[in-house]
C-alpha cells in the first residue's frame, strides 16, 4: 500500500513557535519568579506562561493539512461558559483555575475513580494528533492536539454490561465561568457519546495543543475531541465522565431539540434547520470548501453507523 506522506509541515511550525515562545516565557517568568519567591503560596498555579507538554509520539491519525495558526485557534472560540461571542473566551477564561483539577469517572463501571489531572496526564503516552475541527456554524480549523484516546481511561474503569453511553459533564462554577450567570444554556454543559463512539481510537482526551497545555479558552485542563462530529460535541473543561444506560441529554439538545441531535456527525447532506452544512470556511481561507461526510473521517467511523438513517439520527 502506498502511503503518501507529503513533506512534513508540522515540525518546522513547532520549532519556530519554540523560539518565539522562549522569548515570551523568559520575559514573563522574570516578574513571575520574583513574585513567586516573595509569596510562594499565591503562585502555586503557574498560569502566567504556557507549560510545555512532552510529545511521546506522532499519530497516524493526523492530517497533513496546514494547521490553523495558534493565534486563531486560541482567539476564536465557542465556549459559552465565557460568553457567546467567539472573541470572549480568550479574555474571560483567564479566571478559570485549572490546577488542582479532578475528574471523576463513575456510573456503570466496576472501578470508579477520581483522578487528579497530573495523574491523568501520566495514564498513557501523550500523542500529537492533528485533527480537522468543523463547527456547526460552518467554519473549520486544523488543530494539533495533544492527548490520548479516551478509551484509555474508560477501559481502566471497566464498564459494566449496562453501560451503553458516556456522559461528559463540564465544570459548573459561575464564579470562574461568568457566562454561566446567564441562562443562554442550561448549566453545567453536558455532552454524550454512544459507548462505541467513546471507545473509538479517534476519540481523543486532549490536554494540550501546539505542544503546550491547553489554554483556558480551549477547554483546559482537559477536553474531549471527537473530530468527526460538530465541535460542540467535544465537551471542554470536563469534571465528570459518567457511563450510563440511557442516552444523555446534552446541553444543546435541551436548548434546541429541533436543531441539535444526539449524534451530530458532520454531514453535508443534512442541513442545520436554519443554514446549510454543505460547505465550510476554513479559518484563514477565502473561498469556502465542501464539507466532507464525517468531516473526512468516514473511513474510520462510518461503520459505527451502518444501517442507520443519518437524516433521522442527525
Amino acid at each position, binding site marked *: 500500500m502506498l502511503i503518501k506522506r507529503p513533506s512534513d509541515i508540522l515540525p518546522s511550525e513547532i520549532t519556530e513557535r519554540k523560539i518565539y515562545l522562549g522569548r515570551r516565557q523568559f520575559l514573563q517568568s522574570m516578574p513571575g519568579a520574583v513574585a513567586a519567591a516573595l509569596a510562594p503560596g499565591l503562585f502555586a498555579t503557574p498560569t502566567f506562561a504556557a507549560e510545555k507538554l512532552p510529545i511521546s509520539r506522532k499519530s497516524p491519525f493526523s492530517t497533513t493539512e496546514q494547521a490553523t495558526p495558534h*493565534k*486563531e485557534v486560541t*482567539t*476564536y472560540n465557542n465556549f*459559552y461558559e465565557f460568553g*457567546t461571542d*467567539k*472573541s470572549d473566551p480568550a479574555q474571560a477564561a483567564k479566571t478559570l483555575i485549572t490546577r488542582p483539577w479532578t475528574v471523576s469517572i463513575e456510573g456503570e463501571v466496576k472501578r470508579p475513580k477520581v483522578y487528579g489531572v497530573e495523574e491523568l496526564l501520566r495514564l498513557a503516552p501523550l500523542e500529537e494528533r492533528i485533527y480537522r475541527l468543523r463547527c*456547526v*456554524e460552518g*467554519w473549520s480549523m486544523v488543530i494539533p492536539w495533544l492527548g490520548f484516546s479516551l478509551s484509555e481511561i474508560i477501559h481502566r474503569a471497566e464498564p459494566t454490561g449496562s453501560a451503553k453511553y458516556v456522559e461528559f459533564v463540564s465544570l459548573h462554577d459561575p464564579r470562574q465561568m461568568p457566562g454561566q450567570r*446567564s441562562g*443562554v*444554556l442550561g448549566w453545567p454543559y453536558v455532552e454524550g457519546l454512544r459507548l462505541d463512539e467513546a471507545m473509538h481510537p479517534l476519540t481523543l482526551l486532549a490536554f494540550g495543543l501546539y505542544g503546550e497545555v491547553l489554554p483556558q479558552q480551549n477547554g483546559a485542563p482537559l477536553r474531549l475531541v471527537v473530530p468527526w462530529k460538530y465541535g460542540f460535541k467535544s465537551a471542554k473543561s470536563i469534571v465528570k465522565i459518567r457511563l450510563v444506560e440511557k442516552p444523555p441529554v446534552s446541553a444543546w439538545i435541551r*436548548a*434546541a431539540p429541533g436543531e441539535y441531535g444526539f449524534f451530530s456527525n458532520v454531514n453535508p447532506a443534512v*442541513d442545520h434547520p*436554519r*443554514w*446549510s452544512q*454543505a*460547505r465550510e*470556511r476554513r*479559518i*484563514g481561507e*477565502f*473561498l*469556502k470548501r465542501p464539507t466532507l461526510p464525517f468531516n473526512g473521517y468516514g473511513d474510520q467511523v462510518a461503520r459505527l453507523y451502518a444501517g442507520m438513517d443519518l437524516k433521522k439520527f442527525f
Partner: protein
Amino acid sequence: MKLLPVLRVSAFLACLIPLARLLWLGFHDGLGANPIEFITRSTGTWTLTFLLATLAITPLRRLSGWPWPIRLRRMLGLFAFFYACLHFTTYIWLDQFFDLSGIYRDILKRPFITIGFSSFLLLIPLAATSTQAMMRRLGGRNWQRLHRLVYLVAIGGVVHYWWLVKKDVTQPAIYAAVLALLLGYRLWFHFFSSSPLFFRKR
C-alpha cells in the same frame, strides 16, 4: 444661519465612520479569525442601526419640537441603504463568491435569508424615490404611502438578525426593543394625536 450645512456635513462624515473602521481594521489585521463573518455582521448591524436612526427622527421631532432632525432623515435612510448594499455585496461576493445556485437555494430555503433579502429588495424603491424630483413626481401622499414600507423593512431586518443567531438573542433583542419603542410611539401618536400634550402634528 449656517448651522444646517455644518450639521449635515458632520452627520455625513459620522455616518462613514463604520465603513472607515472596517477598512482600518482590514488593513491592520484587526478583523479577527473570520474576517468575512466580521464584515457581514458589522455591515448588517449598521444597516439596522441606521434604519432605527431613520425611524427615530419623527418621534424626536415631535417630542422635542426641533425642526432640524427632519433634515437629516433622508441621509440616514440612504446610509441604511448603503450599508445594506455593503452587507448584501459581502454575502454575494465574499461569503458565497457568486455561487448563484447556492444563493438562490439560500434565499428560498433559509427563512432568515428569505426575509433579509426581501427587506433589502423593499429598500430599493425607497432609495430610488428619495430625491426631491421623485417626491414631486409621486406626489406627497403617494410618496408617504410608499415610504411606509420602511416599517416592514425594519421589522424584517430585526427578524433576519433574530433568526440567524445560534442561541444568544441578546443583541437582536436590543434592536427589537428599540424598534418596538419607535413603532409603538407611532401607534400611540396615531390614536391619541389630538392630545395637546406634545408638539402637535403640523
